[in-house]
């Protein structure tokens, strides 16, 4: 008897839980015009492709979740901005979140194709090989891979890489850090020891160096893209070593909040992180992925080829700086950044010799420029003034 009663209570509780979960809004794209767009079937500008903004189907594969408030959040934000811009309905877009490289990526790609995707966008470096394989197998579907480096060498008509020139915004954020620091020691919480990360913190350090010749920087790697506990512990260890401005190539705001708890400063990444640590964050370099998504979707609909490898920077609005935090930056930061931004927009290369690595070897001769061959950066040297701790 007693057992039955308990069973009944449990069953009711579970039913109640299910009912409570039911009506809560699914994490869908906010404010996208779904069904209210008038369907101008007559004047739809159909190109050779036969695709229109009203019919095109787009799939997005993300390694994380928009709740990271960093990388994937900005990627997803790019998608929703593009949807609003071109009045693409919610039923025309399918998002796959938390898709790890490997089996899950293959499954997601096949699922997207079965759903009828005309174009598939994957946003993590590790998705590259899976996208390439699928591009070979399905020549009628267009594949777009952010941050990857495989498109140029394989040169398929339906496989594309794209990236933003983050070094530009990193360099400018470094200026704010170099002016702010009092100990002349910066700290950098770095994800993986990959070229993309190394290029990023090198640009950040060079920005700081341009306004503060005495500045040095410690770097520690996490071996993860997103691990808030490690990010916080590393930020603490860097602060313990004397760093008073913390930069990051990591997905969450944990390093920022650690800087705030220690009364030092920080530079965010991916997203405007001032709300997370209002007394610490100076500024955050950010991506605006909608710039590329708009461009690619327009070309698709017009029936034109999309570039195999695409890179855009501050001029196109693909990368940008958040607003400066007036409570934390020193006077004159805005002017110094504006001056350097003018040079960058005019086409200044940030990697010009002489550059020495931290063992004293000369990497670039006087006046020699480092030219990237594709959108994914390849700078892999630890330059003088930076100490990697491992």
């Amino acid at each position, binding site marked *: 008897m007693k057992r039955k009663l308990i069973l009944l*209570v449990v069953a009711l509780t579970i039913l109640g839980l299910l009912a409570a979960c039911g009506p809560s809004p699914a*994490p869908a794209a906010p404010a996208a015009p779904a069904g209210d767009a008038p369907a101008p079937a007559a004047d739809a500008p159909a190109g050779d492709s036969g695709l229109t903004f009203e019919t095109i189907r787009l799939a997005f594969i993300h390694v994380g979740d928009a*709740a990271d408030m960093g990388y994937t959040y900005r990627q997803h934000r790019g998608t929703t901005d593009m949807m609003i811009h071109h009045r693409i309905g919610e039923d025309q877009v399918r998002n796959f979140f938390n898709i790890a490289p490997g089996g899950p990526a293959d499954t997601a790609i096949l699922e997207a194709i079965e759903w009828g995707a005309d174009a598939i966008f994957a946003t993590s470096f590790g998705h590259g090989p899976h996208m390439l394989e699928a591009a070979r197998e399905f020549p009628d579907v267009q594949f777009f891979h952010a941050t990857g480096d495989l498109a140029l060498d394989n040169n398929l008509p339906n496989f594309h890489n794209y990236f933003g020139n983050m070094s530009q915004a990193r360099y400018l954020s470094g200026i704010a850090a170099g002016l702010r620091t009092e100990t002349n020691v910066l700290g950098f919480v770095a994800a993986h020891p990959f070229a993309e990360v190394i290029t990023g913190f090198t640009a950040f350090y060079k920005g700081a160096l341009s306004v503060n010749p005495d500045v040095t920087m410690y770097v520690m790697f996490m071996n993860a893209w997103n691990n808030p*506990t490690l990010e916080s*512990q590393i930020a603490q*260890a860097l602060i313990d070593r004397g760093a008073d401005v913390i930069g990051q190539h990591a997905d969450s705001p944990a390093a920022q909040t650690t800087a705030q708890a220690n009364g030092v400063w920080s530079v965010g990444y991916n997203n405007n992180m001032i709300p997370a*640590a209002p007394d610490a964050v100076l500024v955050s370099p950010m991506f605006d992925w909608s710039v590329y998504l708009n461009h690619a979707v327009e070309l698709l609909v017009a029936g034109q080829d999309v570039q195999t490898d695409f890179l855009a920077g501050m001029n196109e609005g693909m990368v940008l700086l958040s607003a400066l935090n007036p409570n934390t930056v020193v006077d004159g930061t805005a002017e110094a950044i504006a001056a350097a931004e003018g040079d960058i927009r005019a086409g200044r290369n940030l990697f010009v010799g002489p550059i020495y690595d931290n063992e004293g070897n000369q990497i670039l001769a006087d006046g020699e420029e480092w030219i990237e061959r594709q959108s994914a950066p390849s700078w892999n040297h630890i330059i003088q003034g930076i100490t990697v701790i*491992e």
Partner: protein
Amino acid sequence: MDTFINFFNAAVLAGTPLLFGTLGEILTEKSGNLNLGVEGMMFMGALSGLAAVFLLEVGLGVEMSGIMAVLLAIIFAFLAGAFGAFLYSVLVVSLRTQQNVTGLALTIFGIGFGNFFGEFFGRNSPVGFVTISLSARQGFANLNIPLLSDIPILGPMLFNYNILVYLAVALAVGLAFFLNRTRWGLNLRAVGESPATADAASINVTRYKYLATCIGGGICGLGGMYISMVTTSGVWVHNSVQGFGWIAVALVIFATWSPSRAFIGALVFGGFTVMRFYLPLGIPMQIYDKFPYLATILVLIVTSIRQIKEHSPPAHVGVNYFREER
């Protein structure tokens, strides 16, 4: 010396969430329930402690004082962890489901619970993610105890932590006292060692299992709250607990079911996780990450070779009790 003090501080901070999780799981396992849902309960505690402060601040439009935030976070994190453990207890103690499977299900449920509501509240938050006011965060900042904090070396080593560190230490001492020095503690150990004997001695086995599991779950929830409130400073971060619950389960074995050894174990494991940032040895960093697990394996081997009774798990941990099968 400064490096050592910084290293010690970082080890204590890294070890505290582990200590909560370990203490909660020790209490649970002493009742004969092997609850593998520590990770899930930590997620539930992490989200609930943070969300309680966040929702009240947003709902009332106020900035909460530090002490209020700490109290609220402790209460709600404890309740959330205890709720997860209560679900587990209903299934395992009353309905006799298989313990490992139920624990794993609780882990999956808890992770989903934390991430779903964290994301849901974040999307509806004015700033785009779940965060609490600066004054509320002050409650989780390092305490500066007059006089004590100023003692050279000992001051920064012992008297300069946030309030939850001291709560964890107090819990460890309290749990050791409870298990070894009180009648209730003796009864609980009897339930874990041999529920049939305990039942014959007119100990209410079901009540002990329920209470120990739920309170243990609540303590695990506090460990999760430590991560969301201290480690990430009151900002909800997707997947923030990330494996701490599993390390806590390993630490229970490392500590051989003793709260005082859990205290040392948490410090050692905490030290291992931050070691490479303070004592660079020039070896590949992935090797550092393996130290805690290597240590657990070593302890397992040593304890199983030495076969000491008091270092072995409760005899009936993982086994459900059917009175009818006596």
